[in-house]
């Protein structure tokens, strides 16, 4: 855990995960980028739109016996809605994310990206001239198929993240599914690819705590 003072308001900003390079100050909403020794403010984050997510910063749970804490969130939007990507701090130090979309939860960890040719085809699909859906891709020896491709942009972020995610950061997001509930996603951003692999999980199996409560629920 590393602590800095917000360059903008002076409040304490904590980086719980050694993987985090970016944080939003919870007092003044400054976007803070961490360098080797110091931190820098790159502007102010607007308030995130409200939603019915059951999670909040500090929510905890389990995945395959491993405890995790949610330390940051990016809210991504696309033409037909939005979803949340929660950054998880885990005891084994892996770069893990809990994706939350349309009432489904998927937990995945960063893995080696596919060949660049995959990104080229995914971007072409955005122009609707290639039949990309259903394409097979092998990641980590697991066969997956493309089920969805969309252009998304960051609506906002909070907490700490392993990447700098200001409002308006644009990515092409490709979702892949396996035959037994495996999930993977490839994020393509200015020629770079990041791949994440994991699986869909049920609400109950995460045994979450410190979650949000809602009246009547």
């Amino acid at each position, binding site marked *: 855990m590393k602590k800095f003072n917000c360059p903008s308001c002076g409040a304490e900003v904590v980086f719980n995960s050694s993987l985090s390079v970016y944080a939003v100050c919870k007092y003044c909403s400054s976007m803070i980028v961490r360098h080797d020794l110091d931190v820098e403010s790159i502007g102010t984050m607007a308030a995130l739109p*409200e939603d*019915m997510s059951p999670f909040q910063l500090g929510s905890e749970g389990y995945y395959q016996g491993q405890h995790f804490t949610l330390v940051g969130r990016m809210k991504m939007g696309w033409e037909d809605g939005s979803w949340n990507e929660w950054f998880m701090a885990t005891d084994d130090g892996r770069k893990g994310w809990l994706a939350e979309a349309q009432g489904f939860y998927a937990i995945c960890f960063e893995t080696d990206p596919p060949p660049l040719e995959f990104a080229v085809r995914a971007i072409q699909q955005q122009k609707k001239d290639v039949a990309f859906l259903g394409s097979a891709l092998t990641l980590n020896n697991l066969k997956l198929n493309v089920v969805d491709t969309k252009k998304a942009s960051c609506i906002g972020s909070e907490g700490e993240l392993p990447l700098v995610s200001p409002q308006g950061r644009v990515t092409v997001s490709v979702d892949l599914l*396996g035959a037994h509930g495996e999930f993977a996603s490839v994020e393509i951003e200015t020629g770079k690819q990041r791949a994440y692999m994991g699986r869909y999980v049920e609400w109950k199996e995460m045994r979450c705590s410190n*979650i949000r409560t809602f009246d009547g629920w």
Partner: protein
Amino acid sequence: MAGNPVKSFSCPACGGIVEIHAVGHTISAVCAHCSTLIDTANDHFKIIRKEHEASRDTDIPIGAKGVLDSIKWEVIGYVEKKDKSSLSFWEEYLLFNPYFGFRFLIQSDGHWNLATITKRYFPLAGSASELELDGEKFSVYCRGESVVEYVKGEFYWRVRKGDEEKYVDYIAPPKMLSVEKNKQEVTESLAEYIEPEIIEKAFAVGLHGKTGIAANQPAPFAGKLGKIWKIASLSILAAFIIQWSMGSGTLVNNTRINIAQNDKEKNYSTAVFNLPRRSNLSVRSSAPLSNNWMELELSLVNESSNETYQSRQVIEYYSGYEDGESWSEGGQIAESTFSAIPEGNYRLVIDPSSGLLGSSDVSMEIKRNVPAWGNFWIIFLCIIVFPVFALLYRWSFESRRWENSDYAPAIYQSGESDD
């Protein structure tokens, strides 16, 4: 935070207040006042389709909350669809829970299903005649094209009247796996049959009765038929073993007599034998007759009381060779049983008559406590009648289920022609 994040805004068509419950998920909402469909993906609230009609009442009202499988759900959306060619129609209620996500309650002909989207990749979804999910095989039941007839409430996808979709339903009662395909995507959902009484109780509503048999309605004795037959088979085996263990009776007398033609009026008698307790008594007579007959009048006589029990045996055996084939008729053995004979000393008196010239030997074997196989067969029938009924009832149910399908397995196909 005080209260829940409820998003409300003025309908851009009529100005009435529109409230959204699944905030962050909902991207289309229908105004409850004028039925106008509104884009709620962002805060611009564009009109997608303007309407001027009061909203229709649904069997389960939008906003109703109910507990199914110990999870609380709120009804937030309603879609009415019909099949483009068969004109059958069904209703889909969208259920929401902030922790468990979304489910669908689907009603057709008074039958209900609770469905959830499956996040699996099925390479041959829609084209295959069988799909497998977690080791369970689903058989194709129907293929069709649906069109949205009416919408109400809020949705996490873009919905509108007139939307068309191809669908294929696969069944493994009580489950159904449906594949829906439109221009943008393929969606698979897994449904499970749910009794309307459960929904009535959960949402405190009254529903219409069922008609016909639904595609994935659980069959009578579902999952129990194998057990029923196993229990029946084991019971029959047990009855057989019990019967078998009784043995073949105890020999009380073995007599050989020679009946001569000229002794026609003569009676024969066995030696006296003892029945230690009340039991049955069987007499098995065999005579090496050929093209001849013999009749034996049997009298079982109690030595002390002279009480007599009567029986009669006929032995006849004919054989020959005719038109190039050999034939035979009758047999050389006769058996008769005296039932419930009290204990005591007895002898058997035999009064023969026969059609033969010359003489014949007759061997007689008298046994007590002979197991009666008739009892076994009565037990057998009693045991087997229910499993047979269950099997036939099940078969008739499955035949009716598949009547509405173009993909009925051969054993359930009716005899009618296909046109």
